[in-house]
């Protein structure tokens, strides 16, 4: 995945200016930034939901998204939500079922979305994004709306599934710890530019204590200074 000299303006306001980004196959990149830093806009450009004002955008297909909300269609069963947009044949049924099994929801294939908890619904959204074997997976603050415990479990699940399927991943988040625990590389975005670009040189599974220096550096870049 490659972005070269990408600009994005809303009226006179520049959100992204001459932005460059390359994500290699199988690389997990976390994009940190305060609200209004342009990180969600960047993701929307990659997802094809927003045109760039200038520059070159190369996105490998298939490219799928997990949004902050599950965004399930309430009139479709869980299974049909997972294979939404695909033909409704036996093959996609099998693939969708195994994707559901991977996120631990094999039993819920025939359930209606409104019967699921927030965490379960988000896992369905994850299964929907993964069953297409994406070459680029975009995660738009997918854990932000979950409670603290569910969030930890979801993060572990995402780490596990990404390690298994190896898509290129761009995770947009404002949670420094989450970025450090999950990503191979962390980017801090400020005023439409990459302020910081760091490899996370920590062995997996990661411990919070090892990450302290990087954590401080990233928080500093975001304007948070702890004493």
């Amino acid at each position, binding site marked *: 995945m490659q972005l070269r000299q990408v600009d994005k303006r809303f009226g006179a306001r520049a959100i992204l200016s001459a932005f460059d980004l390359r994500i290699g196959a199988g690389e997990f990149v976390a994009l940190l930034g305060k609200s209004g830093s342009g990180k969600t806009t960047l993701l929307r450009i990659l*997802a094809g939901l927003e045109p760039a004002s200038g520059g070159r955008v190369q996105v490998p297909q298939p490219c799928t*998204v997990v949004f902050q909300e599950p965004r399930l*269609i*309430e*009139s479709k069963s869980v299974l049909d939500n997972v294979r*939404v*947009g695909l033909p409704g044949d036996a093959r996609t049924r099998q693939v969708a079922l195994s994707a559901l099994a991977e996120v631990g929801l094999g039993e819920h294939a025939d359930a209606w*979305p409104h019967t699921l908890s927030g965490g379960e619904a988000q896992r369905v959204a994850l299964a929907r994004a993964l069953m297409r074997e994406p070459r680029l997976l975009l995660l738009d603050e997918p854990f932000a709306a979950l409670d603290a415990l569910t969030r930890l479990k979801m993060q572990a699940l995402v780490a596990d599934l990404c390690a298994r399927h190896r898509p290129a991943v761009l995770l947009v988040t404002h949670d420094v710890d989450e970025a450090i625990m999950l990503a191979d590389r962390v980017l801090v975005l400020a005023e439409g530019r990459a302020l910081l670009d760091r490899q996370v040189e920590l062995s997996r599974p990661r411990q919070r204590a090892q990450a302290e220096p990087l954590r401080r550096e990233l928080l500093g870049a975001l304007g948070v200074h702890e004493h």
Partner: protein
Amino acid sequence: MSELSMHAPPRLYALTGSRLRGLSLRVLVPVLLLALWAYGSYAGWIAENVLASPLEVVRTAARLIASGVLWHHLSLSLGRALLGLLVGGGLGLGLGMGAGLSKLGEQLIDPTVQMVRAIPFLALVPLFIVWFGIGETSKVLLIAAAAAKPMYLNAYGGARSVDPKLVEMARVFGLSRRRQLLELYLPTALPSLMVGLRLSISLSLIALIAVEVINTSRGIGFLMLQAQEFFKTGILVVCMVLYALLGLGSDLLVRALEQTFMPWRRSRV
């Protein structure tokens, strides 16, 4: 434990007792009114030409049914209402979905409809008679005009109630425009469409009464008009009950449709 078992049965009885009392309180007033009506007719307080006795109403109903007179009028009325509902409801549905789904449709359709919908359909009666005569055409079209309005408003609102975030999701996951209509917009609009159908049916029944007491020689409205001329209050009451049954029946029908076509809402309490 002993205390629990000692107290549990009386509490249970009390519950059933209060339930029974609630039910009897509910039916008390209707039963009293019916008794008053029956006794009043029997005692001669209520004249036959003001209000027929309950017994006379039942006899009248039985006579009308046995002679086939009721069905003779009812079948035509139902046909009119149904045809008007189909034409008007269909038109409202088509225009409402068109206006709700596309910007162009909205600009083309909605302002005009908003202007026209301010006209009460009863005000159209004279004009429709001038245009379409006093025959079936003007009657069906008046019913259609009445039925179209609520269907349009609810279809328009329903089609627009789709969450834009879901539309984004559908785009990302490659749901074609045609499949978006069938799998996202239509199911989302369905609850509104059912509300529209409910209102359209009740308005077409009202319109049915209106057009049938104006100029007809057959239909429930005509039966009422005739009964009114000859002070046959028994027939009037039978017709009123009939309208109530039609309303009730259509409500049950829509409820059954909702159960069938919106299974994802069934399990929701």
